[in-house]
C-alpha cells in the first residue's frame, strides 16, 4: 500500500541516532500507558503510577564499566546496567539492584555517552545496555542510542520478555540482541521468577530478534533444572532457530534469594554440566564461549 511507504522510506533514510531520537520521544509518551513488558500493566508512569517492576519515569543505573565477562566476540564491552526489572528471579545475581529501580544513580544519557565514547576510544569493542531489564527503561535507552556514534556496535542484553510495542521501538536500534532463555517450562518460570506465560513470550521475542538483528541466546544452567529447563530450551532452539549462536553458561551461583529453593543449595554438579553440554552437541547447537 502506498500509504505505508513514506514511513518505510523515512526510516531507511534516517540514521540510527536520528531514528532513536524520534523513538525516544515516542517511548517517553508511551510511559503514560506503559506496556513495554509482557506484564502489560498499562500504568501511567508519567503520573507516578508503578507497575510490577516498580519503575518510575526516570531511569537509574547501578553499574557502568568496561567488562570482559560476556561473549568473547563482544568483549571488551562498556556495559551499562539500568536499575529495575520486570522479572523476579530468586537466583538473580544482581538481585538487590535488579529488583530495585531506585538503586544506583540517576541515568543521564549525555553524561553516559561521554563515558561510552571514552571506552570505545580506549579499546572497548561494543556498548551493552542491560539491567535489571532495559526494556522497562526504553525512553532512556533510546535517548542513549540517539547520542552514540552511528558506527558503534550496540548490544541489547535482555530477558526477552518485552511486547510487540517494545520491539517496534527497538527495531534497528541494536546490532545484537543478547537474549536470555532462562526456563524451559512455564512451571519453573512461575515458581522461580513469578512469571506467567513465559515460554510463549520469550519464544516470540527470540524469533523476532533473530529475524531483525543478530541474535545470541543465553541459558544459565541451574542445578536441578537440566531436564526441565535446559533440555526443552535446547530442543526448541535446535528446531526453531537452527544455527543461532548459543552461550550455555555453567557459572550458576546461589545469589540473592536462591536459597529459598532446595535445588539451589548446591552448585551445578559435574554430571549435570557434562550432560548439558553433551546434549547441546547432540542437537548440533552452535555453542559460543
Amino acid at each position, binding site marked *: 500500500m502506498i500509504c505505508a511507504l513514506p514511513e518505510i522510506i523515512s526510516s531507511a533514510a534516517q540514521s540510527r541516532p536520528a531514528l532513536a531520537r524520534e523513538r525516544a520521544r515516542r517511548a517517553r509518551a508511551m510511559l503514560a500507558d506503559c506496556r513495554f513488558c509482557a506484564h502489560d500493566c498499562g500504568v501511567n508512569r508519567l503520573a507516578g503510577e508503578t507497575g510490577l517492576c516498580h519503575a518510575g519515569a526516570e531511569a537509574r543505573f*547501578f*553499574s*557502568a*564499566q*568496561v*567488562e*570482559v*565477562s560476556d561473549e*568473547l566476540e563482544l*568483549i*571488551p564491552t562498556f*556495559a551499562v546496567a539500568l536499575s529495575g526489572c520486570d522479572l523476579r528471579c530468586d537466583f538473580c*545475581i*544482581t*538481585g*538487590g*539492584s535488579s529488583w530495585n529501580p531506585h*538503586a*544506583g*544513580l540517576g541515568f543521564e544519557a549525555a553524561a553516559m555517552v561521554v*563515558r561510552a565514547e*571514552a*571506552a570505545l576510544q*580506549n*579499546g*572497548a*569493542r561494543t556498548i551493552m545496555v542491560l539491567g535489571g531489564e532495559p526494556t522497562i527503561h526504553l525512553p532512556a535507552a533510546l535517548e542513549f542510542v540517539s547520542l552514540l556514534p552511528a558506527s558503534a556496535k550496540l548490544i541489547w542484553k535482555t530477558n526477552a520478555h518485552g511486547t510487540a510495542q517494545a520491539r517496534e521501538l527497538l527495531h534497528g536500534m541494536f546490532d545484537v540482541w543478547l537474549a536470555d532463555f532462562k526456563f524451559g517450562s512455564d512451571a519453573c518460570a512461575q515458581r522461580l521468577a513469578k512469571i506467567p506465560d513465559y515460554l510463549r513470550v520469550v519464544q516470540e521475542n527470540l524469533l523476532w530478534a533473530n529475524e531483525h538483528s543478530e541474535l545470541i541466546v543465553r541459558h544459565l544452567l541451574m542445578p536441578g533444572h537440566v531436564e526441565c529447563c535446559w533440555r526443552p530450551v535446547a530442543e526448541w532452539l535446535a528446531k526453531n532457530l537452527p544455527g543461532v549462536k548459543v552461550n550455555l553458561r555453567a*557459572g550458576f*551461583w*546461589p*545469589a*540473592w534469594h536462591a536459597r529459598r529453593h532446595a535445588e539451589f543449595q548446591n*552448585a551445578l554438579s559435574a554430571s549435570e554440566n557434562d550432560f548439558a553440554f553433551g546434549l547441546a552437541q547432540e542437537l548440533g547447537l552452535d555453542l559460543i*564461549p
Partner: protein
Amino acid sequence: MKTLTTKRCPGSSVESPVSEILILADGKIFAHNLTPEMARVLTELNPADKRMRRRAKIGNRVDITLKICKQP
C-alpha cells in the same frame, strides 16, 4: 551473599568499577561483572585457566588509563 551495590569513588560523582567473586569451599572461583583488571588478577591466581587468560588478554586491549576512579 553480599549483593552488588553502587560504590562511589571518594570525591567523585561516579561509581567505581566492581567485580564480584565467589570462592567455593572446594576452591572453585566464580566471577561476575568481570573487569579487565579482575581478569588479570584471576589469571595470576590460576595461570592454567585458559578461558580466563583469554579474557585477560582481550581485556588488555583496553587502555588502563580508562580507569574511572583514581585512588588517592
